[in-house]
């Protein structure tokens, strides 16, 4: 029944996209809202159940390499197989083993990822006091090196593990056995999928579909036995690795996708006559499997731009897919202007919040401040929500460890005597003291994590394609990698800066009310008429983002203080920590833990987002004001403080709109900016969608570093996105 026209790449992609939308709604129906990445997982068949084996029956959890591997292998061997005859690639994933432990949701601050036998109760009072996210026991959030896996294939990886296993010490035995189990589980999953494809091929009547299934089967057979040789094989290999990684522990780091795939593409073009249209289709299918984070363009280790035809094909693939994708273009002095231009055109036309842009200059210079050479810094690529990592070389805990600076402020403000001698200087000093306590506690937690994590939850997937863990028989968290640069993010910058600024402007300078009156109103959550009067006056102060305002100066001061506390002193065990400003999706739960603040924010309301000024920071919301403000507060050690930019479609309706947005991005990077995420969303549309999300099943927004279907976000998160876009209502 399929005619040639019906089985075109375009129609197949449309069908795949629609299927994904249906699956997304099914996921929401079954699991509720998802305040995180869209992910590419699909709902498991009705009635399918999987129960992991626990070695801590009291707390119903499992830990240690042996149990992680056993459960993973069991899950892989039972995992339903999934083949879509429209797809170039086989497989979809359905579970996250990490979450089959009875712990927590994505944005929970309970931090129970470390199995309870690992006791860090001595840190908990301080963690609770400052509402810290210590990251202890958390997994992945660093990048593997796909080239290792692509060079060896699945069986090659198994042989490598077995080679080292045969010579290992008794202490290494558990890890090697676990790695073998992981690989055998994946191989089983792929083998069963091949059987399914062959069955479908036999039953298929349409010759075109049958041919696709035949190639799909051959592709999978080939990569099971040896390393991938074609673009489709390479993409299929990456897809399996990504799906297995997600299933294991949700890992989502990608790679420099254009350079990773270029050799296969060039080979296929020359040897097999691969067309660009087919290459785009295959890559679109890879992007559909899962929205991993990929970098394209940017410099090689010597500073030469790596943009190739492949980079453009990847952009066009995302353009055709029109789904969630996390592509980042690295912008540097030698960038291919055409790639940036095309990226912006696609961003403007599709309005799917991709690509994003990362600023090479500040990232490289910043990373060099940690005493690393520029060559290495250039290889630290954008492969995470807000983060960079050296593929296969670096353990980072990116985006896992956060200090809720608004909470720290609240502790200081509550403790501070609001007497006649009170001053913002005095309060800042006390804030600094508490912030140091908070950061020190996080550093102790990092040491605890690095001592224990390999026994709690080893990185059995990421180890496989990193440099060191298999060779040394050491988990990535336990010395298997070369570099340990642990990220600590500050959250709530604008909330804190605006609070200091409001106190300075309204209480100290204008003397509209006393410290005591102000503190009483804040601690009472601005209740009553007088409270509301004080709140409105505080809220109308000159905020961070206005430009050369009191708020801007406080933001720089708070950022510098935080940066120095993180960057200038290592953990007690000597690990380097790198500061960033990023709240991820934690603005809501962080806000719930903080009472009213002197910026006029009510108790329990979300804290400010990332390094962004609070909405309403300027009456004209000047884009340039925000771009400059965020550039000025960059910590500057190679981690990011992203610039989250919401553009109304009216801004793109002129001949030079792309030129102007490009100029804003580049000027932001000139001034020290590190990462720009852009949403182009119509204010009316987002308000409509907020009322009834099901009317807009394909509305995709970048929430923080990740993008997601708007309909899949919880009402709290939708409100947050709406507030950023519709700041003047």
């Amino acid at each position, binding site marked *: 029944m399929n005619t040639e026209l019906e089985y075109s790449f375009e129609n197949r992609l449309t069908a795949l996209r629609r299927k994904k939308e249906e699956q997304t709604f099914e996921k929401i129906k079954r699991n509720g809202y998802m305040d995180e990445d869209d992910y590419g997982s699909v709902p498991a068949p009705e009635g399918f159940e999987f129960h992991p084996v626990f070695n801590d029956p009291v707390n119903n959890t499992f830990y240690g390499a042996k149990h992680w591997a056993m459960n993973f292998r069991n899950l892989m061997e039972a995992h339903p197989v999934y083949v879509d005859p429209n797809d170039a690639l086989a497989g979809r994933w359905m579970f996250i083993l990490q979450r089959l432990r009875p712990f927590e949701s994505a944005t929970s601050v309970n931090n129970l990822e470390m199995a309870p036998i690992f006791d860090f109760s001595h840190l908990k009072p301080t963690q609770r006091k400052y509402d810290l996210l210590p990251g202890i026991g958390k997994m992945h959030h660093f990048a593997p090196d796909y080239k290792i896996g692509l060079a060896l294939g699945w069986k090659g990886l198994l042989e490598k593990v077995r080679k080292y296993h045969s010579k290992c010490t008794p202490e290494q035995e558990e890890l090697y056995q676990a790695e073998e189990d992981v690989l055998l589980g994946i191989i089983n999953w792929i083998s069963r999928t091949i059987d399914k494809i062959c069955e479908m091929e036999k039953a298929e009547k349409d010759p075109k579909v049958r041919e696709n299934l035949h190639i799909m089967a051959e592709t999978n057979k080939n990569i099971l036995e040896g390393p991938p040789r074609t673009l489709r094989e390479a993409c299929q290999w990456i897809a399996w690795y990504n799906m297995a990684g997600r299933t294991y522990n949700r890992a989502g780091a990608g790679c420099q996708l254009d350079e990773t795939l270029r050799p296969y593409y060039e080979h296929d073009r020359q040897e097999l006559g691969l067309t660009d249209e087919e290459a785009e289709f295959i890559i679109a299918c890879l992007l559909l499997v899962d929205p991993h984070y990929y970098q394209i363009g940017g410099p090689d280790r010597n500073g030469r731009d790596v943009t190739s035809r492949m980079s453009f094909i990847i952009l066009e693939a995302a353009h055709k897919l029109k789904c969630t994708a996390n592509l980042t273009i690295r912008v540097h002095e030698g960038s291919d202007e055409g790639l940036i231009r095309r990226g912006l055109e696609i961003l403007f036309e599709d309005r799917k919040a991709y690509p994003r842009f990362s600023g090479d200059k500040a990232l490289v210079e910043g990373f060099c401040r940690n005493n690393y050479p520029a060559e290495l810094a250039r290889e630290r690529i954008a492969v995470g929500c807000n983060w960079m990592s050296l593929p296969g070389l670096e353990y980072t805990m990116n985006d896992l460890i956060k200090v809720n600076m608004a909470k720290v402020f609240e502790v200081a403000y509550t403790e501070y005597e609001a007497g006649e001698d009170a001053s913002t200087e005095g309060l800042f000093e006390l804030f600094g003291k508490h912030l140091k306590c908070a950061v020190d506690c996080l550093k102790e937690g990092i040491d605890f994590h690095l001592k224990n994590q390999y026994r709690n939850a080893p990185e059995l997937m990421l180890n496989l394609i990193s440099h060191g863990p298999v060779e040394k028989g050491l988990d990535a968290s336990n010395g298997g990698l070369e570099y340990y640069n642990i990220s600590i993010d500050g959250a709530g910058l604008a909330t804190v800066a605006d609070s200091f600024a409001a106190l300075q402007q309204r209480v100290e300078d204008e003397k509209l009310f006393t410290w005591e009156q102000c503190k009483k109103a804040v601690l009472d959550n601005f209740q009553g008429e007088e409270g509301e*009067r004080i709140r*409105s*006056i505080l*809220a*109308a102060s000159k905020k961070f983002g206005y*430009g*050369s305002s009191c708020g801007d100066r406080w933001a720089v001061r708070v950022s510098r203080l935080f940066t120095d506390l993180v960057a200038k002193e290592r953990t007690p065990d000597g690990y380097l920590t790198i500061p960033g400003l990023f709240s991820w999706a934690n603005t809501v739960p962080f806000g719930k833990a903080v009472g009213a603040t002197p910026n006029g924010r009510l108790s329990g309301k979300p804290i400010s987002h990332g390094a962004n000024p609070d909405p309403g920071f300027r*009456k*004209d919301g*000047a*884009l*340039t*004001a925000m*771009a*400059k403000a965020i550039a000025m507060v960059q910590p500057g050690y190679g981690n990011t403080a992203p610039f989250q930019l919401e553009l109304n479609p009216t*801004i793109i309706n*002129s*001949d*030079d*709109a792309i*030129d*102007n947005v*490009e*100029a*804003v991005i*580049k*000027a*932001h990077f*000139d*001034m020290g900016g590190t990462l720009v995420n852009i949403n182009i969303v119509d204010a009316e549309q987002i308000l409509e969608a907020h009322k009834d999300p099901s009317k807009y099943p394909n509305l995709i927004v970048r929430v923080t570093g990740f993008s997601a279907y708007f309909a899949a976000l919880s009402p709290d998160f939708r409100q947050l996105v709406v507030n950023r876009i519709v700041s003047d209502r």
Partner: protein
Amino acid sequence: MDKGLIFDIERFSTKDGPGIRTVVFFKGCNMSCYWCHNPEGIRGVPELRFEPDKCAGCGICFKICPMRAHKIDGERHIIDENRCTLCFACANACTYGSLTQVGKWMSVDEIYIEIEEDRAFYERSGGGVTLSGGEAMKQSDFAAKLLKRCHEGLVHTAMETNLSFPWADYKKLLPHTDLIMGDIKHMDDAAHRKGTGAGNITVLDNVKRLAEAGIPLIIRTPVIPGYNNDVANIRSTAEFLKDIPTLKYYELLSYNPLGNSKGILIKNPYKLPDIQVPEKAGMERLADAAMEYGIEVYIDGRKRTGSR
């Protein structure tokens, strides 16, 4: 004149000249175009703006006003114009932004601090500063100082003007003006006078003189249905412009109804004009007529590339 009366400074403007620009709005205008979209720029004095929908009813203005000009009329909060002395005590106390002072006396340095904020963006986009209004030429001495300061800081300068001031005034600021965006609102002198309160003889003369002085020009016509949107008028304008050597392009601007929402100013009640925003097809017809004279034509920021 050490200070200028400024009613707004807008960053990231992309409609007032090339690239990303900071626009400095001068308060006070010599014309009185009935379609004005910046009515708060007309009078050359600071004014009080009241936006009732932002009023939270806190009552601080009632308490603070030394003249007791704030009153309740039935359920409505009103301001007695006869009592108000424009001291702005209420605007300074109003934290809701309901009462605001429109127009502040600012020094060159004060303005330049804001201009400097976006230097990196001017450099990346080929942008700079645009003086607008009101009418910047009404404060030409101050405008000249500000333009000079921008040039000292290597910032590109542009000025929007109705072109109706004496040539001697323009001469003062030409050394520091990189681009002039001037209006020809009507080619017929009497019609120009009727619509704006001033004739067009000086306007047209200034266009020629600016071209002779080598100043790059963008000439615009705000297209006001029922006033100047006839093809004959646009043809006549284009015919005049075809001989202007420094003309970059001729731009037709659709009537901007923005003024309607900004008109709630006391002492300067702004009558809502009954004007329809021109249809796209009509704008294109006018642009195509102008293009017959061999000049480049833009419609609302977009280059017209040819008739259908």
